[in-house]
């Protein structure tokens, strides 16, 4: 009788140990799953994109305030991309890809609306498909009226080099 009771207690004890091990395993699995869910939330993308947006505004603002548009775009039938590219390179940090597209606003044929005419090819230092592969891409735009009265719509797309999504 005593031996039988001891056998039952011993089995219960073993069961408790197995339960504890199982509980620990469940905790471990939950921890792993939580880490997996939290870790790839890519918070850095948000802060980098916010910085790129500010940087884009800073670049467009300095270009229009310094009169770069008048010096490079106006008076030329074809947009002088290489000149603008050199100027933009001087403003931007290294390892930053950009693509600047300049549209000129003109009156529509019906005299009511406004149409956007692209001035030349977009000015860019980015290899093909850079913006498609980048983890974060910012787009900043600005409407600028030059001293001679022309209205331009500037669209600047930027991405950090060395990062892909």
């Amino acid at each position, binding site marked *: 009788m005593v031996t039988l009771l001891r056998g039952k207690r*011993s089995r219960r004890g073993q069961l408790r140990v197995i339960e504890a091990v199982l509980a*620990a395993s469940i905790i471990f699995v939950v921890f792993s799953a939580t880490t997996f869910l939290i870790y790839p939330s890519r918070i850095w993308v948000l802060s980098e994109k916010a910085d790129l947006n500010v*940087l884009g505004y800073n670049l467009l603002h300095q270009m229009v305030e*310094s009169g770069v548009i008048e010096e490079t775009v106006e008076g030329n039938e074809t947009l002088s991309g290489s000149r603008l590219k050199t*100027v933009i390179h*001087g403003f931007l940090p290294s390892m930053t890809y950009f693509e600047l597209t300049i549209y000129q606003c003109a009156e529509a044929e019906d005299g009511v609306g406004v149409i956007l005419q692209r001035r030349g090819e977009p000015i860019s230092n980015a290899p093909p498909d850079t913006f498609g592969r980048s983890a974060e891409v910012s787009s900043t735009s600005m409407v600028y009226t030059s001293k001679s009265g022309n209205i331009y719509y500037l669209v600047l797309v930027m991405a950090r080099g060395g990062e892909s999504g």
Partner: protein
Amino acid sequence: MQVHEYLVTAMILVFILVTSSTLVYLVSDPLRAVSEREQLKVTAQKLLTQVLLDAGAPADWGGNTSVTADDLHSFGLAEESESTRTAYVLDADKVLRLNRSNPLYIPIHAANNLLGLGREYGFALEITPTLGVNVAARNGSNEFEVSLRSEYAGLPVSNAKVAGRMYYLSLNGSTPMVHDTLLAWNETGPDGRCILDFGEVPSDVKVLILTVDHYGVRVTKVYGLGTLVVPAYLVGDHFFLDGECSVSPSTPFSEITVSDSADGPCIGRVLSDAWSVANGSYRDYVLAHIVPSVLAVVTVCERDGVNYLALASREASLTYSPGAFPPPYVYEYEVERVVIVEGSAYRVKLYMWRLSW
């Protein structure tokens, strides 16, 4: 249960406890590091916005010589204006007061406290022109080779209009005077170089003022040439000079400015009188009037019977750092923007790091 079963159970429980705590550490530590780095980035971006877009309090602290670091309520370098304010335009007086040699220097620990960084973060500011300008004299003559390069790639900058003028100490006649040369100008070639020839300059004590215009982006440089050019500092309308030097009451002060003309940038000067007021170890001269966007002020001063040129440059290139630059920290974050100081384009870089983890 036998004694050995209790022992095994206790060992397993201890093992589970140790493993769990290790797991918790392994899981939380990388997340904490990522979160703190993100916090550092966001703080750096906010800090640069505050420094570049806010004028500080009092808003006129740059040119107001009665305002010291103790009187500042907030720190910002933006130009003060009563009506409109242009973004990313900095006040030259505020920027120059970050220079350690300026008599009204604002210590970086004061800026640190005003920005609310306390002992948690450290920061450094680096202000450099957007274009790299290098000037070399040719065979000791007054012919200078100017070389322009982009800062990052080091590529030559072509088609930039370069103008220069020299101001020199002239001892002809009874009183020493500051005279100027004709304006020399040229355009950089495909190699980013050009020559400026000032002809015959009858003095070895001279100051070279250069301005570069690259499709509207202006960069200015001020060089003191020769050993008889002593540094001075202009804060607001106050011209500070080393206490051992003095300026004769009849000597005018040349305020040098850069303006735009149809042919490109033009360098000129306006003469001003000044009167002396006592100010500690410096001689303080208050200028009767000061022209807007003054780039440098030059005058003749005298020390131990020898005449010197006193040069107060308003060129804003500097590093504002608590110690060695760049700071030797494990992790730092860098943000940069382009700003305008007295019409010239500068790149401002903010380096930020955590002092405690």
